[in-house]
């Protein structure tokens, strides 16, 4: 967790005249000041604590609690305790196991294709070129659209009979594809849509990271005789390390929780071939009312995110904090 420290240098620039000696205060008023401070802290934190406890923490706890019960969801709390039954059932559930495999596939595709592509585009856009602002605006546009809009648009584009994509493939002499309607192709079609929707977000993050690298460093490397590739490999890439690690983090966490896009685009089909943990959980919980069983999936999603987040923060992001406080080269592996 990185936080910015209050700049001490602002002290000198402060336009506010300082009074040297505060007026002496009697003891009673000092105590009153202390009590008043405590009341302020409590009153200011109260709305946030209530909102957060009731609507963020309580649901997570309720999910954990109900995951060890057999429950159809009526009432506020379940009663039929079944231990870890729901979890052992999950281990035999082919759809759930498939969800994990498909999630892993999407994560690999994102890390191998989507993020490097975004990085390349960000570095291109960092150079002086005409219409740069326009491209940036354009690449980021899908990110501000709802997942539902992206999904509906692509379900039309990729429709096997009437879709534009097959027209174009046919026109180029590449044959046609069934895209979303065949188990073999649906995951790759889904990945195209994910890339369309999110890669602009990563471009923006990389661009911000790249622009924070001082020009002197790349120039110094060039003067020392580095070609473009070496500048990238030994200067830009290491200094982008923190940004890259954060995008990997966001991408993995986002994939674990993927729901909207898949639910609208394919509903998890055909024959569960594109289903994700979120879609399986929705189907079991909201359509079949097996709330305890569905909660077990929620808990798995939560644990996957938590274990990944803690492990990643501990072993990967930690280095960034060390590096940030010591030298600029802290990102070097």
């Amino acid at each position, binding site marked *: *967790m*990185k936080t910015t*420290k*209050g700049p001490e240098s*602002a002290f000198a620039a*402060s336009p*506010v005249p*300082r009074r040297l000696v505060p007026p002496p205060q009697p003891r009673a008023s000092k105590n009153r000041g202390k009590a008043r*401070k*405590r009341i*302020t*802290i409590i009153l*200011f934190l109260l*709305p*946030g*604590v209530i*909102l*957060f406890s009731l*609507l*963020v923490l309580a*649901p997570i706890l309720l*999910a954990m609690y*109900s995951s060890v019960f057999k429950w159809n*969801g009526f009432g506020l709390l379940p009663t039929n305790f079944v231990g870890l039954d729901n979890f052992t059932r999950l281990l035999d559930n082919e759809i759930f196991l498939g969800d994990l495999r498909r999630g892993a596939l999407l994560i690999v595709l994102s890390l191998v294709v989507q993020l490097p592509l975004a990085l390349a585009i960000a570095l*291109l856009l960092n150079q002086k*070129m005409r219409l740069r602002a326009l491209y940036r605006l*354009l*690449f980021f*546009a899908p990110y501000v*659209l*709802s*997942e*539902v*809009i992206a999904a*509906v*648009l692509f*379900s*039309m*584009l990729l429709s096997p*009979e009437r*879709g534009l994509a097959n*027209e174009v493939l046919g026109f180029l002499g590449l044959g046609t594809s069934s895209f979303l309607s065949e188990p073999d192709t649906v995951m790759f079609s889904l990945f195209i849509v994910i890339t*369309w929707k999110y890669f602009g977000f990563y471009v*923006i*993050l990389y661009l*911000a990271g790249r622009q924070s690298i001082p020009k002197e460093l790349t120039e110094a490397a060039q*003067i020392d005789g580095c070609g473009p590739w070496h500048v990238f490999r030994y200067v830009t890439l290491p200094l982008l390390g*923190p940004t890259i690690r*954060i*995008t990997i983090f*966001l991408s993995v966490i986002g994939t674990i929780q993927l729901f*909207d896009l898949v639910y609208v685009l394919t509903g998890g089909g055909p024959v569960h071939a594109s289903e994700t943990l979120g879609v399986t959980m929705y189907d079991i*919980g*909201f359509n079949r009312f097996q709330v305890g069983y569905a*909660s077990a999936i*929620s808990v798995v*999603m*939560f644990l996957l*995110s*938590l274990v990944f987040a803690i492990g990643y923060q501990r072993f990967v992001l930690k280095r960034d904090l060390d590096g940030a406080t010591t030298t600029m080269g802290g990102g070097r592996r």
Partner: protein
Amino acid sequence: MSVHARERRSTPARIARPIALHTIVIVIGVFIMVPIVYGILGGFKDNPQLANNPIGLPAPWVPENYTNVLASSDFWRQVFNSSLIALSTALVTVAVSALAAFVFARFAFRGREFLFTIFAAGLMFPFAVAILPLFIILRFFGLLNNPLGVILPQAAFGLALTIIILRSFFRSIPHEVEEAAILDGCSPFGFFWRILLPMARPALATVSVLAVVNSWNNFFLPLVVFNDKVWWTLPVGVQQFSGQYSADTAKILAYVVLAMIPALAFYAVAERQLIGGLTAGATKG
């Protein structure tokens, strides 16, 4: 000297590179644009045209798909619902977070870091994990089919990011400002309300924009909270519409395109806050 000679030698490369660069960027730009343009043009076609001529311009242009959507009260009701919910969410999120961030930034007390870490950990709990128990809790409080049933959870889930961003901004305001205000007789609340908040206007704008965009695009929560069509937001409306008229592609495209306009317009206006907020959120989170 040698640097000079090098530059001159690479003259052909200096022409070729920008061309290659533009080609790559344009190809990706086309990939981004195609679905949107296809939607806009498709909305001006009728279904036989869409089947026979999916690529070209509409001939003739058929505006009925768009005018029908614009004339439907359902569509406007959804625009209204989405706006109401997004603005209320932003208001609640920012108000509650600003109070908490103020305390986290400017007061020292026991357990502060622990409490802050719990809030910050909220970044990892998105709706997908909590949606089912959240539904049960909202039902218990009678908040189903009630806009508060979406506004309050969205605000609660937005607290983490908003508090993180606001806290770091509040911290950057020098202590001397606070001391001067207190010497001049300001209460802590007076300092917060009359001095800190006005100074934090850019940060407040950023977090408000983030809250509005997140709320506007949220689908999962309104999907389960609103059974009643009266409260459907645009994403739910689009999804339901596309299910209902699945055979009528042109109609759906028109609906999707019109539903896209408010988000794109908002993005055009608030681009700087949105991008600033996302990068700040990603690097500080």
